[in-house]
């Protein structure tokens, strides 16, 4: 993602200038220093109706990003700090017996919010993790035989510390694909880090954020993204990339048709985030590593990791 050509206004002329989406993105970028691509990815995951997993070291701004996102989105938001003694009920909610009514009443857990920040998800036990992951996949929660629908939009931003392995339960490979995209943030550049040092504290900055969107608007944007035009050559490109994962000798298995559908959905959302009114191969190309990386398992004997395989596939797949 070193060079990121942006389509000039000629190409995106139809997008409403200075829209609320644009303002929301600009607001998050004002808080997260020097990471416009990550912010783009986060908005793409949101508008594609998926969830985001951020894997990085502590202190690079994972939580800040999640908070900023939830603030500009305007809906309800919840933060869950995962620990190893946490139970599924702590996330989903519990039914309690109300003596006066002689009835069970469901008390929704923190998952009932438009934006959920699941911090350090790998510190929870697999049982608790899967409770959240199932809720993410279904869009609903079933407690004591009763199904409770989660609010829409429903967007989970989970963070995971890849280095802090002691006493953690890394998400199993098979459940990683509950997240639409997986990304990391990385260190800012020297100049931008200087800005971080000079400017007021991020927490103060966060307090200044105003909701630019609301739930209805987000749902409308999701619908708008779904309607975006994807031309045949872009579909060819998507199929070529997916096909390459299925034919790669270093991989246990290729990407599923579900992953292909996710790719096209996210590429559309990415195009919308960039104010394009049609999908470009760039959208696919830039989304693909974050969509495929955690869904592919390299064969141990190939000596390669999934990241380098994905890079190799992108570098060798012709753009039609």
């Amino acid at each position, binding site marked *: 993602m070193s*060079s990121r*050509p942006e*389509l*000039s206004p000629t*190409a995106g002329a139809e997008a409403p200038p200075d829209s609320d989406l644009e303002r929301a993105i600009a607001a998050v970028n004002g808080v997260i220093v020097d990471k416009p691509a990550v912010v783009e990815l986060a908005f793409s995951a949101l508008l594609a109706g998926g969830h985001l997993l951020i894997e990085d070291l502590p202190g690079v701004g994972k939580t800040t990003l999640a908070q900023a996102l939830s603030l500009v989105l305007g809906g309800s938001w919840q933060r869950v700090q995962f620990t190893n003694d946490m139970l599924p009920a702590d996330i989903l909610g519990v039914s309690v017996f109300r003596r006066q009514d002689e009835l069970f009443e469901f008390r929704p857990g923190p998952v009932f919010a438009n934006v959920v920040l699941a911090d350090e998800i790998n510190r929870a036990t697999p049982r608790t993790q899967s409770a959240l992951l199932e809720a993410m996949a279904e869009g609903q929660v079933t407690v004591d035989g009763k199904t409770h629908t989660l609010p829409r939009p429903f967007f989970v931003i989970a963070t995971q510390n890849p280095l802090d392995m002691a006493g953690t339960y890394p998400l199993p490979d098979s459940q990683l694909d509950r997240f639409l995209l997986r990304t990391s943030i990385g260190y800012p550049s020297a100049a931008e880090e200087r800005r971080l040092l000079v400017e007021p504290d991020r927490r103060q900055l966060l307090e200044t954020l105003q909701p630019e969107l609301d739930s209805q608007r987000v749902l409308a944007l999701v619908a708008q993204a779904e309607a975006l035009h994807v031309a045949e050559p*872009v579909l060819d490109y998507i199929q070529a990339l997916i096909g390459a994962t299925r*034919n*790669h000798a270093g991989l246990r298995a290729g990407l599923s048709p579900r992953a292909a559908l996710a790719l096209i959905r996210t590429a559309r959302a990415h195009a919308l985030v960039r104010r394009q009114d*049609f999908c470009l191969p760039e959208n696919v190309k830039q989304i693909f590593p974050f969509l495929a990386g955690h869904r592919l398992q390299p064969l141990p004997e190939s000596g390669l990791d999934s990241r380098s395989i994905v890079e190799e596939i992108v570098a060798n797949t012709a753009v039609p």
Partner: protein
Amino acid sequence: MAHPAPRHLPFNAVAWTIAAFLIAALPHLAAMPPWLAGFIVGACAWRLVVARNRGSRPPALLRLLLTGMAIALIVLAFGGLWGRRTATALLCVMLAAKMMEMFSMRDLRLVASVSFFLIATQFLFSEKLIYLGYLVVGSLTATIALVRIQDIHGRPAGAAPVAQAAAVRNGAVLLLMAMPVALTLFVLFPRLAQPLWGLPDQVLDGRTGLSDDMSPGSISNLFLDDSPAFRVEFEGRPPPPDERYWRGPVLWNFDGSTWTSPFSGDAPRRRFVPEGEAARHYSIQLEPHERRWLFALDYPVRAPDNATVTVDHQLLNRHPITALTRYELVSNPDFVDMPTLPDGARSLALRLPDGRNPRTLELAAELRQRHPDDRELIAAVLRWFREEEFFYTLSAAPLGRHGADEFLFDLRSGYCEYYASAFAILMRAAGIPTRIVTGYQGGLWQGGSDYLLVRQSDAHAWTEVWLQGSGWTRVDPTAAVSPDRIEQGSGSVIERPGAVFNFDWLAQLRNRYDRIQHLWNRWVLGFDHDRQRDFLQRLGLPDLTPERIAVLMLLVLLIVTAPINYFLLRQARPARRTPAERAWHGMLGRLRRLNLAKHPAETPLEFAARVEAALPQQGAAFRSLAEMYCRIHYGDRAGHEAAFLAQARHFSPRKA
């Protein structure tokens, strides 16, 4: 699209390459000392195990040592580094040694490619039809190995290895695609009238036909040899069976046990033999036999090219026959050889060693007294052979010092050499000039009456006596004893050891195979300079110089490969392009000339950014064109197209 080479060659490619090499080496392995063949097979097996276990190559010093040892042993085993057997063995050993360092794609490809050559070297040793099948199997294996190797090397990253069946199919298709080229090269490659080099001797590895001397017992090993000696095609009426005497070496000198020819040189015939009224026209395809003589019916009118006729009407080629040779002949059966016998020839044809065969001499004197006329005397001897208890057998006892005495009075059983030799001694003793002729007699019709197949087992010896008025006259004493031998061919009298297995269908199968072999000989091996000329003549292209034939060959090659080229080019090009795509690719082509080539994996806009950096003046224009193209190509294609086409056409990039 460089793909990082895997650290270990895939087992599949290694296995196919080794299979190709082993098939190529197989006929040579059989001719090698066992320990050498063991070294080669062992090296291959070792390499397979290493490929399975993903091992690495042995240390360089060990490799060097083993290779050096193998070469030294070859020198010892073959006595030097000269000769075809040594050279092919050396090649096999070097390739086997290559197994020890076959750890890169390049090495694999080398071994597979040299395997093709190794397969072809087999034709230095034998040109039998069966090796055509071998050639096909070997080439197919080597081609599949190349497909497998190419698969590791040229496979785009991420593509799965080609399935086994697909690789086999690919190899077969490649071979088939090469067929028109191979056929064109075969038919049109300029042939030289003379080979550039002759094959060294011993093409047959010691197996020979007739020898140039005769002592009773020497031909017998030929009788059980079913291999073809030559094939004859007649123009017009073939001679009756009892006239199918194929003349070979003529023997005059007898030292008591062995008959030899007195003429060491070519001793050319000076007499003119006219064609006569009953002339027979025929052509002979002679299998290589390492000797110089050619076989003919009595009496050849003139010698084929590169051959002479000796005084006793034997055809001698200038060089030993080391390859299948075809020649055409005219024979005059009515020619009278030597109506008058010169004194020198007469004394040569009457000479007998002293102190041998006293009883035969006695019998001759007695016969001479009773029959003053030569013809009557001969008839009497033949009648004697026929009426007394003389037998024809192939399991005859060896003869001692007085061979003719032993045979005529005690043994009385033997085969043609015994009869010819004893008869000649008896005739000479009776004062009738006699010489022995060896050659072949008879032959079997193949495929109805397409051609006559003469086998080694048809080898025969007979005599010629000189008679006043009819000159040298053929007398076959064997015919008196065993007329079947002459009428029906050698097969009728030979008691085969494996007679149980001699079923009719087997014989039929053998005959059918010989028919195919005959066609193979005639149209493939025998396709020489003359045949090529005939062929071109029939196409209406007479008298082409080799240079012209070469040009013709190139032309035909271009034509026969055109469909393949067309097919490949069409596959390489994507399907129909829209006008915008054509204009875009036109611009890409113009930029490529400035060393600004779009990488296939680059998107148009990524490429535009690169162009903008490289061409500051025109970059912006190109960028806007790229954006227009994206709008048309990836957008909904509405509008813009005309403007883009017009601008793209005028875009001509220049280096700043």
